[in-house]
């Protein structure tokens, strides 16, 4: 059985929980006392992931860190439809571009959230401005995609690019990064919520 080292409020862990639910793959969630216990900084966890970060996925002998990498693996291994991570190079390149964005610029939203919720130290104005800039890039892209008749980031159907970008965009409000300006993002969020097997996390509504 897949084991996912997990924390309920982590958007990065949610990327994996979300895809596992959409793929209808069973897993065991191993709760890590991320806060207030900081168990992810202790030697037992560091042996699993020297970066001291969640999520970590174990599947048989394979141990993977990094939410984006885990999404690539799960789609490759458990998706018989080959839709979540299609095999053609152009789509894979496009998906990789957005996975990078999800683990990069979008993470400013995660920083704003950690600052606002748990008091992590960040230059909050800078981080929020960077999150807004990233959201604007995604919103402009989704607007173009809608004009071209497509509902999803990287293909004519949902892919792991959508799953990777979704949590910290949808949770922007938690860190004071409002989605009010991003019409196309809000419509895309509504579509993601309709995917069969969609599951929520706190801060994200079901309908």
């Amino acid at each position, binding site marked *: 059985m897949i084991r996912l080292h997990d*924390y*309920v*409020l982590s958007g990065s862990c949610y990327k994996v929980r979300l895809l596992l639910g959409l793929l209808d793959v069973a897993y065991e969630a191993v*709760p*890590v*006392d991320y*806060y*207030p*216990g900081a*168990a992810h900084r202790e030697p037992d966890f560091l042996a699993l992931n020297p970066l001291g970060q969640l999520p970590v996925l174990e599947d048989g002998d394979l141990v993977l860190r990094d939410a984006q990498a885990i999404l690539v693996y799960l789609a490759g291994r458990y998706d018989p439809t080959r839709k979540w991570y299609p095999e053609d190079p152009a789509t894979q390149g496009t998906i990789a571009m957005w996975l990078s964005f999800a683990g990069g610029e979008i993470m400013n939203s995660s920083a704003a959230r950690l600052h*606002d*919720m*748990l*008091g992590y130290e960040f230059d909050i104005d800078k981080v929020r401005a960077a999150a807004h800039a990233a959201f604007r890039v995604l919103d402009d892209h989704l607007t173009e995609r809608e004009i071209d008749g497509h509902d999803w980031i990287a293909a004519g159907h949902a892919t792991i690019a959508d799953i990777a970008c979704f949590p910290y965009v949808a949770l922007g*409000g*938690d860190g*004071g990064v409002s989605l009010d300006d991003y019409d196309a993002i809000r419509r895309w969020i509504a579509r993601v919520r309709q995917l069969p097997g969609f599951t929520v996390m*706190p*801060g994200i509504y*079901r309908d």
Partner: protein
Amino acid sequence: MTRTTDTVALDDWQVVGPSARITAAAPCRTRLLGQDIVVERAADGSLRTVEIGNDGVRGAAHPARDLYGYVWTTLGDPPRDPLDMPEFEEAGRRFVDCGKVTVRTSPLRIVENFLDMSHFPYVHTGILGEEPLTEVSPYKVEVREPESEIWATDCRFYQPQAAKSATGGIDTQYMYRVSSPFVTVLYKTCPAVEGAWDLIGIYVQPREETVCDVHIFMLLLDDVSSDAELISFQHEIFQQDRSILENQVPALMPLDPGAEAGARADRTSTVYRRWLRDRGLRFGVHGAAA
């Protein structure tokens, strides 16, 4: 930084952090009621709070004490001690500190949300409630003297997953208690031991009128779940509330009876708002300069 002038808020005890984390080597620098403070522990274990001015200069000192796993302090002259919880003396009880979460709204909104059951099916769907079982049966609310604490009793609600260790839906019974404007504890059916109550409480530390640190604790009879599982459950519930709390407008809570519409299930909230009006609280109140 602007310290409040509201003596009702000042003449009271507030929590600033867990006792275990405030040590001689690790003082607690924080803000309370608009005042920057540092809470220090001496080598002999005693505590005190010192005000820090806008210029960083140390100012007046105030008392601080350990109680029920947390450090409490005051910037004024409280007429009574913080609440009494004899359950902490009981054998088999497990105390869990769930950390603190910052919420940008009035402390009064946070307490009122904690006292409310009618949001369970909508905010904690599938956990503390679900449609169609949305009705809140009538319950009792009274102010108990001489402590002048609000108690709501005979509360009950059907819950699909009442606690981390729950294996199915149950009719949960609740009691709610408010011992001071920013301190509230609930007592709920203990799944493990019939007839006993589990305690979950929030100590709201208002840094400013609409920025609060909420310290969450549990006192349970559960010896099955790990700390990580229990904390995870509590965080899930609290975070669902946080995303509502930060979207209530206005953030400062109006206390006038006609300001916001109420329903039968809002009796505890009605009593809480009247109780706050009777005390003359201005801090965190809409339309009152504090």
